[in-house]
């Protein structure tokens, strides 16, 4: 998500890394690049300015000028500062109260209705809650229908009343309904509104007063530009919200709004939206995001996602196979399925350190493995078991069967052999092996 910014930082720090000695002049130059990178990433003008000034002070204060590896030190300082800016530790959503009431707020089209559904789904499946959705957008055409469709998708009841045009009344009645029907969370979807729309801001403030939610969330589009600060500030002044949701991070936006919003209202970013589907959400981890900005990859969440989807038993078995150099095309195919289960491939690859840039301009989507899969599926069981028997005529047959060229088959087999070699090497080193088993599904990752 922050690939472009990463690129900029990479370039900025290359200037430093290339030089053995650092002078105040080229620190200033680097920081100018940093500032520009932040602006290109839509970080607010003033915040970017303050940020770079801060870094400069810290850098000089820490004697960066005489440091052995000044570039690294500066990277470290920048990373620390970015993390601090985006909010330190991860903060959970507050679910106290019975029912706990969550109020959504934000500009038009930011993703409130979609996120209401995602959150209900998350609370239901991961936290064992019984959520109720409440349709309090009485303005947008088909807003209530939209929430009903979302509710149906995830099997969550939606409270609505097309004849009631008063969001205060609907939300209060929804909570009443929840109380008498055993729902322990109520998520209130509201209409999109502009911060400068006095009437609409009064309306949502009145809703908040009437229902005293345990959690008020401000939903903001990750693609938002300089205006993010104004909007966040205005909503915060009226609603004193508890957390921020950053949506549409599955795009290629640099996402500087995250930095702007957090630093202007000082409220934690609690969730991110990563797609249109109901599962496409995640918690927000500032330190990971900062690492990501600096091109250090988001290895932690990659490992977690791999773990969530990986079968422990299978992993051990695979481990033994690799050690004995018995990893075959069936295993390879299996690995591909595992990776696909983990989500969007490009997204995943972007989390690997140094890969962000590499995948940025690649046309990788969920079908990325289609060609590879087709080739493997055109192999006989014997061939999959032992790829060494795949001679020239077999290769031709496989190519025909999978609708690809012989060169493609050749390339895949070559890559497979190389991967096998590397895997065996790594599996022999104790520490590597443990890392790899943690990473589970990543082992069969083909090289692009």
């Amino acid at each position, binding site marked *: 998500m922050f690939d472009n910014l990463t690129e900029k930082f990479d370039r900025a720090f290359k200037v430093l890394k290339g030089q053995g000695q650092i002078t105040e002049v080229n620190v200033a130059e680097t920081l100018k690049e940093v500032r520009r990178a932040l602006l290109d990433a839509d970080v607010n003008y003033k915040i970017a300015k303050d940020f770079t000034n801060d870094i400069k002070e810290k850098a000089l204060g820490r004697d960066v000028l005489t440091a052995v590896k000044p570039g690294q030190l500066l990277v470290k300082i920048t990373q620390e500062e970015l993390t601090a800016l985006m909010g330190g530790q991860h903060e959970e959503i507050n679910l106290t109260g019975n029912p706990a009431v969550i109020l959504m707020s934000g500009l038009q089209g930011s993703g409130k209705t979609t996120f209401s559904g995602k959150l209900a789904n998350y609370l239901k499946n991961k936290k064992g809650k019984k959520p109720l959705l409440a349709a309090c957008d009485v303005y947008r055409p088909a807003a209530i*229908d939209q929430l009903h469709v979302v509710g149906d998708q995830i099997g969550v009841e939606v409270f609505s009343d097309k004849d009631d045009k008063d969001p205060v009344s609907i939300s209060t009645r929804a909570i009443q309904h929840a109380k008498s029907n055993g729902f322990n969370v109520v998520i209130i979807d509201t209409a999109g509104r502009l911060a400068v*729309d006095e009437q609409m801001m009064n309306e949502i403030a009145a809703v908040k007063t009437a229902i005293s939610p345990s959690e008020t969330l401000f939903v903001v*589009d990750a693609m938002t530009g*300089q205006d*993010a600060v104004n909007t966040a500030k205005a909503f915060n002044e009226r609603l004193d919200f508890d957390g921020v949701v950053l949506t*549409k991070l599955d795009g*290629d936006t640099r996402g500087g709004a995250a930095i702007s919003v957090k630093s202007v209202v000082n409220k934690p970013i609690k969730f991110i939206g990563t797609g249109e589907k109901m599962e496409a959400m995640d918690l927000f981890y500032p330190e990971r995001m900062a690492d990501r900005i600096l091109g250090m990859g988001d290895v932690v969440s990659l490992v977690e996602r791999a773990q969530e989807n990986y079968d422990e038993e299978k992993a051990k078995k695979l481990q033994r196979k690799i050690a004995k150099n018995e990893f075959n095309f069936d295993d390879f195919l299996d690995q591909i399925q595992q990776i696909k289960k983990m989500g969007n491939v490009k997204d995943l690859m972007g989390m690997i350190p140094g890969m962000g840039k590499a995948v940025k301009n690649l046309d*990788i989507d969920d079908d990325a493995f289609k060609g590879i899969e087709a080739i493997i599926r055109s192999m006989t069981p014997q061939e999959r078991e032992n790829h060494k028997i795949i001679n020239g005529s077999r290769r031709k047959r496989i190519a025909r069967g999978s609708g690809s060229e012989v060169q493609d088959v050749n390339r895949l087999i070559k890559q497979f052999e190389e991967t096998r070699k590397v895997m065996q090497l790594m599996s022999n080193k104790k520490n590597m092996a443990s890392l790899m088993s943690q990473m589970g599904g990543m082992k069969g990752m083909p090289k692009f």
Partner: protein
Amino acid sequence: MGIFNFFSRDKKEKLDEGLEKTKTGIFSKLTKAVAGKSKVDDDVLDSLEEILITADVGVNTTLKIIERIEARVARDKYLGTEELNTLLKEEIAGLLEENNSGTATEFTLPEGQRPHVIMVVGVNGVGKTTTIGKLAYQFKKAGKSVVLGASDTFRAAAVDQLRIWSERAGVPIVDQGMGADPASVAFDTLQSAVRQNADVVLIDTAGRLHNKVNLMNELSKIRRVMDKVVPGAPHEVLLVLDGSTGQNAIEQARQFTKATEVTAMALTKIDGTAKGGVVIGISDEFKIPVKYIGVGEGAEHLQVFNKFEFVDSLFSKEKV
């Protein structure tokens, strides 16, 4: 409105109606930086930088604007406050592609083939469906017969939403329900429009992020299919950009242009505090004009874009 009183007032009024709430405190800053000075000095350039960056114009385009101004100053030697303001606006407006409908404030259709087919594209939630509803309302008001095509068959209740707009505008809609093939809906819509001798067709499409290859391919396909019913269709591809979007809009323009040959942009939600300055660089780089601006959620909240008014709004602080 002080030193920037460069454009006629009545023209401004309409935009200001929408931009009423848009103003921030930057304008006074520039005024201060310029006041009493006769040359473009660093202070002025700094304030200019702040104004433009804060309006989402972006670093590249801001530098370009500053370069152009510096070049003019070097050439013209002396530059006073008055000239600076005029020149500044000229230079910025010069980056904006000429809109074929010129400075007209009316919603007109170009001469030529009927039905005139407009396909509307953009990332999620920018205001595509709403803009279609507003356009339908305007064209209908101008006495044109309009047909809507519900090719967003994916987003929850998308068809219902467009249907409500078709009722508001009083125009027919062609749909195949949710989950249908969007290209097939577009095909149907055009056939129906031809049968009805309609003047204009507006095709709604699902929001999609421009980095999703499959979805972008789908868009190219919808586009191609229409040509089979009405040769040359779609005659226009309207890219809708959310006025509060930052620099990512450039990439959106690039990718949507690649997939569908965008012919014009609509900039929405500038009734808020966002300025939408990113369209300047986009218009300059991809040579596509901004055609409409969205200034609210109602049917009548759409205006024909006027670049001088727009540039003016980047600098304005409060309503005249």
